[in-house]
């Protein structure tokens, strides 16, 4: 077994251990013996049973697939655009979701449990469609990222305009939603995110050689028989669906897609297959533990998960800049 395979197996084991350990964290004290008996046979205490199966397991599983999904989306976008700073958030996906959520909040007072994620999802897709449309009109697919940044600011300004004149309660809801949280997730959310994730992973596995060919430039990839524009569009579509689904249920969780692939490249390499598997595993471990911090660091309150990922992400980013300065 070579070094990369060993690392990936080690990370897989860490994902399972992290998920198990994360279930024991929370306001109610549940020790590992009780947890194991609940998982393998049946719970002695019915309250513990409810907490484990209906609160903690869904939450840990959603953290797992959301971490995987955000990290994979970042990795795919970075490789297909050859830009190490590409991130699903830069393509307007979150500001689109924010606009969708805002409109749903302002126009619908109730029924928000279904309407909010749906509106956020539609908003995110809407944003990506505009970005692709602009890039098509300009006939410059390599400028997707710049178009994304512009669209992102445009949608955010519309959202802020609506919120500024909107009803304060609705505004509050949207702002808290944008900070990201796994507090309200259910098992059904896990199934939806996991299905999109499986489709994304299968597609990337199928096309991994094509994506790799892009790493030495569009011209080189085209000479190897890759339809560059079509491939880039397909990958953007997959990343958009993946991120939009996650953002719809969990709100804005930033920096995961940017940060995780950077770490993975140092550990296992830059080609797509290794990068995707590594990003999925480290993304899962990262978000599981960030969610543990979010729900257990303050005594009677939760910290929105997006605040923690952004804080860690920005520090991490500065650290990378500092380190690359030291190397150069």
């Amino acid at each position, binding site marked *: 077994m070579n070094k990369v395979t060993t690392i990936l197996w080690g990370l897989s084991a860490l994902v399972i251990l992290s998920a198990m350990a994360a279930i024991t964290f929370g306001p109610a004290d549940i020790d590992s013996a009780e947890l194991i008996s609940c998982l393998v046979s049946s719970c002695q205490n019915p309250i513990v049973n409810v907490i484990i199966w209906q609160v903690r397991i869904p939450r840990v599983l959603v953290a797992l697939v959301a971490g995987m999904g955000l990290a994979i989306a970042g990795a795919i976008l970075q*490789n297909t655009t*050859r*830009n*190490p700073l590409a991130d699903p958030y830069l393509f307007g996906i979150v500001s689109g979701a924010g606009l969708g959520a805002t409109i749903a909040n302002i126009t619908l007072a109730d029924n928000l449990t279904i309407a909010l994620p749906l509106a956020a999802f539609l908003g995110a897709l809407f944003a990506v469609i505009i970005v692709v449309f602009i890039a098509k009109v300009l006939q410059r697919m390599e400028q997707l990222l710049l178009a994304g940044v512009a669209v992102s600011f445009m949608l955010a300004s519309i959202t802020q305009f609506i919120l500024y004149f909107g009803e304060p309660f609705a505004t509050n809801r949207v702002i808290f939603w944008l900070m990201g949280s796994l507090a309200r997730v259910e098992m059904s959310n896990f199934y939806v995110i996991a299905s999109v994730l499986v489709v994304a992973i299968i597609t990337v*596995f*199928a*096309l991994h*050689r*094509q994506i*790799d*060919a892009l*790493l*030495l*430039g569009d*011209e*080189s990839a*085209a*000479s*190897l*028989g*890759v*339809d560059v524009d079509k491939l880039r569009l397909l990958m953007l579509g997959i990343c958009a669906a993946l991120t939009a689904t996650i953002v719809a249920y969990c709100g804005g969780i930033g920096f995961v897609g940017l940060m995780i692939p950077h770490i993975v*490249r140092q550990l296992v*390499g*830059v*080609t797509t297959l290794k990068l995707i598997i590594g990003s999925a595993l480290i993304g899962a471990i990262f978000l599981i533990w960030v969610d543990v911090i979010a729900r257990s660091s303050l005594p009677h309150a939760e910290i929105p998960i997006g605040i923690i990922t952004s804080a860690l992400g920005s520090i991490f980013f500065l650290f990378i800049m500092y380190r690359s300065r030291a190397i150069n």
Partner: protein
Amino acid sequence: MSTLLNISQLSWQVPNKAILHNINFTVRKGEVIGIIGPNGAGKTSLLRCITNQNNILASANVTGSVQLKNRAITRYSTKEIAQHFALVMQKNDSIFALSVQDVMKMGLLPHKTLFSLDSDHDKAQINLALKKVGLEQALHTNFNQLSGGEQQRVLIARALVQASQILILDEPTTHLDVYYQHQVLQLVNKLNITVIMTVHDLNLASLYCQRLILLNQGQLICDGSPEEVLVPKQLSQVFGLPCQKSIDEMTGAIQVSFYLPDSHGKNSQFPESPDE
């Protein structure tokens, strides 16, 4: 020698300018062809048409035909074209730290199906190709850290893994110093496959190509052996400078040199560019 490529009446017209005008030539198996000419003569455009990059031949501005093995190149899929042509570009670096192995694996792409992984046979092919270009030790080296000459050799090795019949090189020696220029061209010459390359340095072209095609302002001026093409009068007209021919004592190859009209002096009048 059997005919591989047949280019006939190829023209590429954009408003107010003919990028290529009525180009006709055939390429036989095993030939090493150098395309020469001044900047803007249409050398790289010709390469783009031959390989139908971005489906350029389907564009309304392009007329004429390119046939590969007696079949119009427009009827080949992009994958089939990649199985026939391998391209080595001028500039190849990646923002990510690709290893030589990663770059070599790209050459497998035209022969692979979706989901496929690398077999032992693939790895053997990669090692063999690297050995042919003298870089078998470099398999795990970072591609970006290689010298320009080594990068070109890796890309030529990638073309070997690609197992295509025609190797296309666009200015393969541009960023290389004298040693690597000769090393790369000698390597290309020894591979025993059909090669079409654009070359700026006429003396290198003379030394390493069996056949030269001289382009100027989109037109094919001359097509033949270095002796037939490197004629001082012809070159003076195309490049706009007086030209002199000699035979290199060591290699026996034709060498040409250009000079300013009343030369030796730094203050001599520079002639106007022939394009203007």
